[in-house]
Structure formats: C-alpha cells, structure tokens
C-alpha cells in the first residue's frame, strides 16, 4: 500500500531546508524540475552540478560532499508547505527499480516565527543506503497530517 508505512525503512539520513516562496531551491536546471519531481543524485559530478539557491548553502553542500556514492545515493524532494507547518521524513523504501518515501507534517513550535496562509518550499535531501545505477522508473511519495511522537523536521 502506497500510503501505509513499511515495517522497515531502508537506512537513510536526511537534511531539510526551507526557502521562501514556491520556487525550487536545489536544482541542476530550474526549468526541468517541478514540485512533483523526485531528483536523483548518483555521483559526485551530479552533486557538483547542483545549484543551491539559499542564503546559507554550506550545510547542503556539505551533506552532498560527505556522501559516499559507492554505498549511497542522494534523493531530493521539494514541495511547498504552509509556513507554520513542518514536514518530517518517516521512512523510505529504496530498491533497484523503485523509490518510495513517507512523510508527515505537523504544526511548528509556537515560538517559530512564521506567517499563516503563506507557503514556502522545503527541500529534503535524503542520503539513502542504496546505490542506484540510474534513476528508478517507479517513484512515489506520500504525506499525512500529524506526526508520531518525537517531533521536528529532520535536521541530520
């Protein structure tokens, strides 16, 4: 089932960053990526070709350069979200011909400075312990309202 969490996730680490507005913030060619695309970064050359459109791009750059592409791949998902909500990655399922991810979203802490009725974009970089030779043909991502205990956006 697409919406149901798998009993075990493929091991992963992730890093999320928010950007203003709804434009993508991590891309190779901004014209070829839309909100529903899942990008696959499979080697150092792919990683170096990425543009990181953030005021502080260093953590994203570091996350990419610290990846050993002989044992892992990077998957990037970018979607908009209400400013006062946060998205958390719960699990991924990476196999040779497919990639699935499961997210939840929840209200940010009351002290988080944010505006109601405003959308921002969140880029989630996933370092998944699976080596893809090429992007899998089957990709899907689902998201539910409300997160299990242990809140907060993944900040690996």
């Amino acid at each position, binding site marked *: 089932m697409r919406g149901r969490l798998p009993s075990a996730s493929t091991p992963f680490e992730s890093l999320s960053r928010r950007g203003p507005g709804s434009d993508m913030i991590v891309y190779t060619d901004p014209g070829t990526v839309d909100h529903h695309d899942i990008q696959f970064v499979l080697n150092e050359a792919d990683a170096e070709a990425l543009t990181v459109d953030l005021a502080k791009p260093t953590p994203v750059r570091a996350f990419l350069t610290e990846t050993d592409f002989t044992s892992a791949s990077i998957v990037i998902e970018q979607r908009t979200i*209400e*400013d*006062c*909500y946060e998205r958390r990655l719960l699990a991924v399922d990476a196999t040779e011909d497919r990639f699935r991810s499961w997210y939840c979203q*929840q*209200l*940010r*802490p*009351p*002290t*988080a*400075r*944010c*505006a*109601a*009725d*405003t959308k921002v974009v969140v880029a989630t970089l996933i370092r998944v312990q699976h080596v893809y030779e090429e992007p899998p043909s089957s990709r899907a991502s689902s998201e539910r309202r409300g*997160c*299990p*205990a*242990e*809140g907060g956006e993944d900040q690996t």
Partner: protein
Amino acid sequence: MTHTHSRRTVLATGAALTGMLAGCTQDQDKRADSTVELSAIPNILAEPVPEVQPSAPIIPAEEPYRDARTRTTTLLNELPVSIAQSDVPNGVVREHIDDHRSRAREHIDTASVGGERRYHAFVDTVDARADARQAATMYEAVERYRQNALAELSESLRSEHTAVEPTVRDARQSVSYMGPTDGPELYRALALYTTAEHALDNAERRLANWELRPDSTVVDLGEAAATLESAQAATDVWSHLLRRYADDRPAATALQPLCETAISATRQRIDAIDLPTREDDDWVQQLIDQDIDENSIRWEVLYESVDPVYRARDDLAEAATTTPMPLADGLTAALRVEQEYRAFKRVRQRVAEELSPEINETTVQAEREAAIEAAQTATDAISGPSMARDRLAETVRSITYADGSLEILIEDGVDGVTSMRGEYLEYVCLRERLTVLPAAARAFRERLQEA
C-alpha cells in the same frame, strides 16, 4: 392514517397518474445536467429565509446566566488586548487564539437579556466558555512552552478531566422525565428533557474520547481544555434549567412509560411499511412504478428523500431496543420518521407526476421559494415550545446551509457556471419536509396521546 399505507397501496394509486408520462422520462432526464450561471445566484437567493428560533421551554434565572458570562469574560481577560508577534510568533497559533476569542465575544456580545432570548443566550454560554477557554489555554501554553513547562499544563488538564467526568455523568443520570402527561405542557417538558439529554450525552461522549498525547501541540492543549470547559458549562446550564423546570412544572408524573410506548408505537407503524431492502441493487427503482434512469435527477431526488427515512427508522429501532431506552434519541427519531416518510411520499408523487427534470435558475429558485413558504406556514402552525418546534428550526436552518454552498461560489466574484444539482435536490426535499412537518407533529402528538 396515510403514513401507514403500504408501499404497494401508494404505488397502485400513483400508477394510473404516471402511466402517461412513462415514455418521456429518459430523454428529459438527460437534460438534467444543464448548468446554471453563477450570476443567477443572487437572484435565486433573493427571498430571505425566516429566522425560526428553537424552543425556549424554561427561562433561566439571571444569576447563573450572569455567572456564565462572567466566567467567559474572566477567561478572555487572560489575553492581552492585541496579541503581538513577539508574544506568539507562530502565525497559525496566533490566528487560532484570535478566532476563538472573536467567537467567544460574539456569543456574549449582546447585553444581558431576558425572556426567551435569555434561554438561548444562556445555552450559548456553553460555546462561549469553550471558545474563551480555548483561546486562553493556547495563549498560556505558548508561555509554558517557552518555560519548558508544557507537561505541567497537560497534567493539570488531566486532573481536571478526572474531576469533571463524574460531574457530567451525575448530571446526565439526573435527567428524569417528569411532568404533565398531555397537551402543550407535555410538549414543553419533552423539548427541555430531550435537548438536555442530548447536550449532556454529547458532553459525556466527548469526555470519554478525550486524550492528551505526550507530544500534544499548544493547539491540541487548547482544544482539550475547551472540551473540559464545554462539559462543565453544559452541566452548569442544564442542571440549572432542569432544576428550574422542576420548580415550575404544573405536575410531576413520570413520563418514561408514556415516551417508551410512543416510541414503540411509532416503530411498529414504520416497520409495517413495505420499504424495499437496501441490499437489493435496484432498491431505489422498487420505490416507484416507473422506469427511472440511475443518473437522472428523478433517481437522485428519490434517493435523497428516502435515505433519511431509512436512517430515522434505524435510529428508532436502535433506541427502542436499547435498555434503558434512550428517550431523547427515541423520541427524536420517532418525530423524524413521521416527517421524513411523509416528505418522501410527496417527493415520490412529484417524481411520478411533475417534477422538472431540468435544473435551471427558474426551477432552483422555485423550489427554494416554495421551501421558504412552507417554512412560514409551518412556523405559524408550530408555535409553542416543543420537539416539533426544534425540528422546525433545524429544518429551516438546513435551507441556509444549502444557500451557503451557493454563496461560497460567488464570494470571489468569479464568472462561470455550476451544476447546482446538490442544492436543487436539497431544496426539493426541504420543501416537502417543511410542508409535512405540521402533519408529522400532529401524528407524533397522537402517538404520545395514545400512550
């Protein structure tokens, strides 16, 4: 009694009338998806819906009403006049607090009132207190979050939950139907008892489902506090009104046996009606001696009118077979059965004879205005405090709900068209529900009289 005729008897009567129309329904029904210009909506909604207040069976004393308003104001006073971003940085949380504060204020906005208006205003204090408490608790929770002390607030709410549960349970168990056994005084008593029982049942159910997770947000905590406040407020309001009625009632005979007999009698009558079983694929078709296209307006309007009959019948059966019998559920379902079955029969007759298969500005407006006219006639016929009056207020309110779905369409000033199918079906059914309500109320009262 008409409503006890079997389906076959009614169908046989209608067959002669419908035979001449049988050949043309299919083609006409295909035109049913015609659309209506959004610009026609203001015209369709031009006729105002009458305001029909539900019963005010007993007027509360001034003191408890004043206390409830004071409690609301005290809670609201815990909030600053304007909530700054520095106080509550999260915009959604700030918006929630402002919304609930505004709603609480609206409930107590009017100056202290007397007479029947005081009854409605007093009942409204339940929501006023809940909204005020939700706003105040969310605001407090933000401060506690900063101090890393949310767990203490949760603990305090859990203790309150433990304390309020038996209070509400006692109030619910103390609802004892006692009063005069006939005439308007009986109807008044039943209006009070059924409303009180439903309100306290609702409070008890919400408390039973109440929970606080360890990771509850400040919004969750606000909602949890509002549920507790609402339950306590419902207990305060209904305990007072029931006590006050006990001092005021002209007689104090136990009404339970009479109510149970009336509920059982209504159940026997509806069970004697030969409605098709809904497990049959063609059960809607079986309702009428005429071929009806499943995608047609005629099919849908039949479905929309008969579905509440089945639901009322099932609710009645459930109440009648529960021990002890839940009188509010049983009596309410009995009145709904009388109303819905009559309304269904009229809709079926119109489907067979003349209901327009076309949805356009004229037909939608005509059904809505006929519903409003029926509401006015019913309002004149059902005046004193009674369950029928409450049902009337509820049915009239449904016109405004259907209107609301049209108003939303024109809110943004967008041009275009809409099918208006749902609204048309609703107006057709509401028209008949309101037309038959006086007769349904008389039948319901006969069941009570015969008990």
